[in-house]
């Protein structure tokens, strides 16, 4: 086969694919770890600013007085974690105790095999003369299923760690986390289902391309699905106001109470990467991925400027979402655990189902109705989407399923259970 692109001296096509993938893995892991370190710094600075403080602004270049706005802080943090004593309590299950952080960290990183961090690089660079897809494993048809499967493994990391720690606080945190992760998988999946119906594919790059092709982001046509997915993503990432499993005030640190040193760092980094993953997914599924009207186009073959603009647009959307995650942390109080479960099962799950039904209806009959009415299908969908969101919210508000009657119930002989004050429970 005569080589189309620059000669590389590597003839075996499989070898080329492997090398391409390895280069992408190195870039992705390096970029992700660096980004995570600096996002931790950003989170600490933002937390400080919101609390009217300045935050860590002193660590700069070592042995000099140059401060660089505290940009050396992540390195100092990392070094501190590495050199800290790694204490293994005597009462833990050693094997699982070691395994748990590895599991959660591996799972958090493995998700990025299918998450695109841009669109494509131009064909002129491609080893095979084809454009390079900015995904580690391009063309996986079940990309979304893979994401869900791998992100569910994170629950194992949490549960294993909490169980192996042999500590009541850890165990409580782990149980909460397990229940929470399992519950919120459902609304997350339902929120996704509407998107999959719209684009007709489980491939993340195809989902983006579908939105770019029509120029209609999924958030516009199914706002209800967007709300469900964002709330579920917050819960899956265990960020406030859904961080019941590690709330410092009641559970010390939740499932990583007994961890220290590099193992604790793996837990913390994994959690942080979960948040970044959630931001990526929201941006890709609902906010059009790398698409911006009039800037990026949707074609497969692009030149360098468009390719770079697409990367910048995607990363800007992700950064904006991460900032929202960080602001949300300080804006709203934590839910009580029963409220958390009520939100998942009594509000988000029905909302997700309603959204799927509405989207399916418009995909099946939308074109015919649009032709009959004389309005474009996306406009109709967006209109109904807003109406459905409003109605769903109104019904949830009226029904108020999270209100709990927590008065103790007394049972007297010969009498059925009734609440202490008598009268019907609300």
């Amino acid at each position, binding site marked *: 086969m005569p080589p189309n692109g620059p000669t590389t001296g590597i003839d075996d096509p499989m070898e080329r694919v492997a090398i391409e993938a390895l280069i992408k893995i190195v870039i992705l892991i390096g970029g992700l770890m660096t980004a995570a370190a600096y996002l931790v710094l950003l989170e600490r600075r933002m937390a400080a600013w919101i609390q009217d403080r300045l935050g860590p602004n002193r660590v700069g270049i070592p042995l000099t007085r140059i401060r660089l706005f505290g940009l050396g802080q992540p390195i100092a943090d990392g070094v501190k974690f590495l050199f800290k004593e790694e204490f293994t309590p005597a009462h833990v299950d050693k094997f699982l105790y070691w395994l748990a952080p590895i599991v959660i960290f591996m799972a958090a990183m493995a998700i990025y095999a299918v998450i695109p961090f841009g669109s494509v690089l131009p064909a002129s660079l491609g080893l095979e003369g084809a454009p390079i897809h900015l995904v580690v494993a391009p063309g996986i048809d079940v990309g979304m299923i893979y994401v869900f499967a791998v992100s569910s493994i994170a629950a194992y990391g949490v549960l294993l760690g909490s169980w192996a720690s042999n500590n009541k606080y850890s165990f409580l945190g782990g149980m909460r986390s397990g229940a929470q992760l399992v519950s919120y998988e459902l609304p997350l999946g339902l929120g996704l289902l509407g998107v999959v119906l719209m684009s007709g594919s489980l491939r993340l790059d195809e989902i983006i391309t579908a939105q770019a092709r029509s120029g209609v982001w999924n958030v516009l046509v199914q706002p209800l699905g967007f709300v469900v997915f964002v709330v579920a993503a917050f819960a899956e990432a265990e960020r406030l106001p859904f961080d019941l499993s590690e709330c410092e005030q009641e559970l010390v640190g939740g499932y990583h109470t007994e961890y220290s040193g590099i193992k604790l760092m793996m837990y913390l980094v994994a959690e942080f990467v979960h948040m970044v993953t959630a931001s990526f997914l929201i941006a890709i599924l609902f906010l059009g991925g790398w698409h911006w009207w009039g800037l990026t186009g949707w074609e497969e073959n692009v030149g360098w400027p468009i390719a770079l603009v697409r990367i910048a647009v995607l990363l800007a959307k992700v950064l904006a979402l991460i900032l929202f995650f960080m*602001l949300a942390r300080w804006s*709203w109080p934590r839910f009580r655990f029963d409220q958390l479960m009520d939100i998942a099962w009594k509000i988000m799950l029905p909302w997700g189902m309603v959204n799927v039904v509405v989207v399916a209806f418009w995909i099946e009959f939308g074109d015919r109705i649009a032709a009959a009415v004389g309005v474009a299908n996306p406009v109709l969908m967006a209109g109904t989407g807003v109406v459905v969101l409003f109605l769903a919210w*109104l019904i949830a508000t009226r029904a*108020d399923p999270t209100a709990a009657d927590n008065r103790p119930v007394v049972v007297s002989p010969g009498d059925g259970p009734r609440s202490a004050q008598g009268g019907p429970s609300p």
Partner: protein
Amino acid sequence: MKDVDKDIVWVREPELGMAGKSYLSLFVGGFTTTVKHLFSPKQTVESPEERHESPDPLLYRGVHRLNRDEQGRVKCVACFLCATACPAHCIDILAAESPWPDRQKYPESFTIDELRCIFCGMCEEACPVDAIELTSLYDLVGKSREEMIFDKEKLLSVYDQTKDAEPMRTKRMRDEG
């Protein structure tokens, strides 16, 4: 549990209105507060470069000082009221007959263990002659425990250091009428 107990009153949470139940007001309110504070001026004092300035140095409870009178003598009359009032028992006074005609006793030695002190200000409250006062000096360091036991000379020297910035309470009260 007895369900007939008339003394038990079950308090119920106040009912939320539609806006409260819909979570929207909380959502908007929380977010507005956060964003407002994100851009508001910061309270942090960058310590080694800047110093925290107490809004009223006479209210701040920092390192003690022993005041001098107009002739430069220690004002203390060794009445032991401060040592009695001290909840941490950090004041140690050795009284002796006064060399001056206007009082009977004076402290031959007067030591305060600054490491035991809890800076509650009770000594200042108890003192009938305004001899012991707390200054607004807060960065109190030493290399050994012994160094942190302040004797009479040291406490008087704290007065010499701070008398200009922080006049005695009696003087200030006189000035302000």
